[in-house]
């Protein structure tokens, strides 16, 4: 366990928002910790090597905390459990710190499907292995309550690792959101939202690469003023439907926008990227990942500058 104490912020205090109903203005992402880099395989591998050591991850999180960041928006990757454990063990050191779990970690499921098929994979991740088998025996089709049961059990399995820490928002990952969106399986969004609210007293969030289309479907699922995270950046990188449609949605539609990939994986210089972001209406929060203290501090400084 690391013995250094996080430095206290000398640059303007936590980036939390006084209105408790709102998200922090800046959320810290975790792609960099798990070898995910949308621009370079080599960079991704370097990061995977560096961050196989939990202390290296915690050192970066401590830097983020010292800069005023209080939220880690993270996948439900196995290794996040170790981060949660550290934070849980030192509540004073991480005062006010929250996790926003993003579920599921899709590659875990995709590889399991290749190996065991869809049912086999579901079975593997269900807490009670016998349940699905019992449902499937005799080939009876799944009733509505079965589907609800499967979705909620999968959510519970992913949430088990977050017991004892604050999780005020629970996100559904874009691969799942967009798969359901394309299929037209809109009811699943409501099942997820209801379960997250009732069981975890948390706000459900939806990550998507297809913001304008998703907003229509969340409307029809009866989810009001939804929390939606999507790529929002000046060059339109992975903004399906086009920058203009996103800008129109931000200006006109009732939803709470979280912007990710604001730098388009490094394709836009930070100042230019954030200047554009803060010129858009209705963005409640941005999420970014970084692996160095200087990068975190310079990004936070830019945010404070543009928010003034």
């Amino acid at each position, binding site marked *: 366990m690391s013995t250094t104490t996080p430095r206290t912020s000398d640059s303007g205090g936590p980036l939390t928002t006084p209105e408790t109903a709102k998200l922090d203005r800046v959320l810290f992402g975790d792609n960099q910790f798990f070898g995910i880099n949308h621009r370079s395989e080599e960079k991704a591998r370097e990061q995977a090597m560096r961050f196989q050591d939990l202390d290296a991850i915690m050192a970066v999180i401590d830097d983020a905390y010292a800069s005023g960041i209080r939220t880690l928006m993270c996948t439900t990757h196995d290794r996040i459990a170790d981060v949660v454990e550290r934070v849980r063990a030192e509540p004073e050191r991480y005062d006010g710190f929250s996790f926003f779990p993003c579920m599921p970690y899709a590659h875990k499921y995709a590889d399991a499907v290749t190996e065991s098929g*869809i049912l*086999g994979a579901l079975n593997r991740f269900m807490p009670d292995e016998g349940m699905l088998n019992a449902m499937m025996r005799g080939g009876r089709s799944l009733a*509505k309550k079965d589907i609800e049961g499967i979705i909620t059990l999968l959510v519970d399995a992913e949430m088990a690792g977050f017991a004892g820490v604050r999780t005020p928002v629970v996100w559904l990952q874009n691969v799942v959101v967009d798969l359901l*969106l394309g299929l*037209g*399986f809109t009811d699943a969004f409501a099942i997820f939202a209801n379960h997250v609210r009732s069981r975890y007293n948390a706000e459900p969030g939806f990550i998507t690469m297809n913001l304008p289309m998703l907003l229509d479907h969340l409307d029809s699922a009866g989810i009001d003023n939804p929390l939606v995270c999507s790529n929002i950046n000046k060059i339109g*990188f992975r903004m*399906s439907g086009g920058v203009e449609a996103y800008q129109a949605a931000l200006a006109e539609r009732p939803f709470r926008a979280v912007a990710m990939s604001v730098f388009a994986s490094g394709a836009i210089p930070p100042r230019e990227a954030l200047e554009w972001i803060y010129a858009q209406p209705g963005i409640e929060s941005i999420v970014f990942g970084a692996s160095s203290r200087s990068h975190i501090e310079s990004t936070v400084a830019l945010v404070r500058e543009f928010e003034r």
Partner: protein
Amino acid sequence: MIRLGVVGLGKMGLSHLSMIRAHPEVSVEAVVDSAGYILGVLSKYTGLKTFTDFEKMLDSVELDAVLIATPTRFHAAMVRTALERGLHVFCEKPLTLTAAESAELSGIAAVRGLVTQVGYHNRFVGTFREAKRLLEADAIGRITHVQAESYGPVVLKAKGTTWRSKRTEGGGCLYDYAAHPLDLATWFVGDALGVGGTILGSVFSENTEDEVYSTIYFADGVSGQLSVNWSDESYRKMTTRVSVFGTQGKIIADRQEIQVYLRSTAPELDGYAPGWTIKSTTELTDEVWFYLRGEEYSAQLDHFVQRIHDPAVAPTNDFASAAITDRIIELLTVDAAAGASTTAPSSVPATTSAPAPRRRNLLGRRS
């Protein structure tokens, strides 16, 4: 509006269904799968018309095209049926399990003037497209060698329970993984003349291979190395990389970026200077109407749609091109089954210090 049926709702089928159902010019009229539970969920929650039998679906629904994503062993018969009914066909890779069938189906489609496509999605990745563009412009001079690699963490223990763990059904690292870098290599440098030294090795699997290594001989003296392993846990997900070596430079491309080295003697090319030029997927990728798991998956479906609308659109990944890849896969299987062909120490006299001259004998080794 193109009326489409989707056949096979496994991992690939479901994701294709999601993307194509969101396409503004396509109407998904029906889906087919043998698993009742998936059909039940889809019909209850998405209103899709479902069938457990392919032919029954074809008899009941008016279609223009089908998308086939069943296990590979079913492809040949289904594709043939669809073509004989005059339907355009998008089929998952590999097209069939034998080169002869793939070539025959390609012929049937050509005679009937039907649009065909196989799901080699890497040909729609921005970086690989850029590599293809550079090679067509002779950017790196005469090509001497191509190295095609894929690695990923699919099989990490002995027991698999699906068709993907049985080679006889089209599973295994060769069909599932190696087909991709191989297809890119043929796209870049053309059809293979032969293969040698092929190893289909098991790391964990009992009924199929987990590694594929081979030397591939292309026309004009271009050599190739194929190196594929789907039991490599150090990769987070499937990673495909193709490196092409030429007299004026080299190109290394993966899904994220393309790295190009040009000698000062290389022909001038817009956007590229002598030395290294690196371009990222963010600048090489066109926007798609709907994003699920990579622009290339959406783009390949859109290409199929656009080709049905306009037969003049030049094909990428039609059956004829997939048949080339299937034929090389068959060569690799035959070569590996024939066992190792080595130059053992005993064939070189101990008194000679220089390597013994070895007769170049490309294709006639076992004939």
